[in-house]
């Protein structure tokens, strides 16, 4: 099995050779992901694993995709989307133009969920969603707007729990085993790689969504990312986190006020 010192060696290689900095990720989860990949790809030794990573630039893509967690779904945590629909979007709608940053968007299921809410609130035409992730592979899938048909029943149930009143299946067309979401949604999205660890702020947003990304970071890195979000938000902008993530322990929390029961904060200072 892989020991902690070997993990450190791998992380060092990744930073030196490819510029990916995982050194401030939560150790327990990161190690679990690395050991899982080691076994999945049937390496015989740490040395072989390391050599593959150092020499095969294609393998590095797979490594990043497997080490970062890309499990997501549409309208995940229905109560969150309900609050977004009922409380946040009407306020955002008073702006002439709405800029949203979805940081760590993975394969895009939640980006399309937000776009559907914007559409139903008649705000999509004046909105732009910047959807970013560290991982180019998942962004390609997000850009395609095609999600497995086998998941649609579950997504449709989530959509209804989140207060959706339309026929969910009217938003996509079935094509073999995938459902492709209408282009009116993807037209309002810009997909781009962005590394929360090393890249800086690139615009000012009315709403920043970053759900279940920070759980993979240690406290110091979380703090850095909160500062990045703060710098990317105008006054009275909103920040939305995952259901078990909190701004409470951060040094910027005094500039924010939680609205309602969901993990949504408003920048008040």
């Amino acid at each position, binding site marked *: 099995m892989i020991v902690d010192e070997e993990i450190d060696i791998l992380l060092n290689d990744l930073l030196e050779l490819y510029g990916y900095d995982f050194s401030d990720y*939560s*150790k*327990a*989860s990161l190690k*679990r*992901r690395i050991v899982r990949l080691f076994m999945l790809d049937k390496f015989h030794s740490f040395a072989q694993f390391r050599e593959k990573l150092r020499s095969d630039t294609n393998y590095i893509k797979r490594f990043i995709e497997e080490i970062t*967690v890309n*499990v997501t779904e549409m309208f995940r*945590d229905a*109560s969150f989307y309900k609050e977004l629909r009922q409380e946040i979007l009407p306020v955002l709608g008073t702006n002439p133009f709405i800029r949203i940053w979805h940081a760590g968007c993975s394969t895009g299921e939640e980006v399309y969920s937000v776009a559907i809410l914007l559409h139903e609130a008649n705000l999509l035409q004046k909105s732009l969603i910047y959807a970013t992730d560290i991982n180019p592979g998942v962004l390609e899938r997000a850009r395609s707007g095609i999600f497995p048909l086998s998941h649609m029943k579950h997504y449709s149930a989530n959509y209804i729990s989140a207060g959706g009143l339309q026929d969910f299946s009217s938003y996509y067309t079935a094509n073999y085993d995938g459902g492709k979401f209408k282009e009116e949604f993807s037209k309002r999205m810009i997909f781009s790689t962005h590394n929360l660890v090393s890249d800086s702020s690139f615009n000012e947003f009315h709403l920043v969504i970053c759900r*279940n990304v*920070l*759980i*993979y970071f*240690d*406290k110091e890195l*979380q703090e850095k990312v909160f500062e990045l979000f703060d710098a990317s938000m105008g006054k009275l902008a909103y920040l939305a986190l*995952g*259901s*078990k*993530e*909190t701004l409470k*322990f951060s040094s910027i929390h005094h500039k924010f006020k939680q609205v309602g029961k969901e993990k949504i904060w408003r920048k008040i200072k």
Partner: protein
Amino acid sequence: MAQDKITGHCKLLVVGGSAGSLDVILKMVPGLRHDLPFAIVLVLHRKSGGDYTLSDLLALRTKVRVKEVEDKEPLEKGCIYIAPPDYHLLFEKDNTLSLDYSEKVNYSRPSIDVSFESAAEVYGSSLACLLLSGANADGVKGLMAVKQAGGLVLVQDPKTADSPYMPQQALLHVDVDQVLDVKSMSEVINGLIC
């Protein structure tokens, strides 16, 4: 021999359970000391819902502080922590808890194996783990890791379990230190010494 280990160093007790385990926990919690010198973490298979009923339910039965885990929560002794539904729960070396939304393990999230293995790695011989009633084998591999790291392995007596499969599998595959019936559970936990 098991007795020796029970009086060893316990910094953390992790309790895993599935079908039929909630009832056991509700019976065990009222008998716990209010000044436990270690933290207790509950990792149970349950449906995800927006409410906090399980922590409320437990809080009614004990003066020990009960809390559903938030990301990077520091572990404090004398507290009961509950793994939130739909996340894996992991232990960090700095005595905090972290959450993980990766693939289900044994069709479960949280997976008991994942939490036991992670706790074993961080706490080694100062860890005790207790596996309760359940209808699948999640937790058994985790108990092996706990044993290997020198931790204490406790299992509910299958005869007293609603779904005996999980503790049975543990007894089959792991060198269990002690088998507990529901009545003696809180007393044994109170006796785990820091």
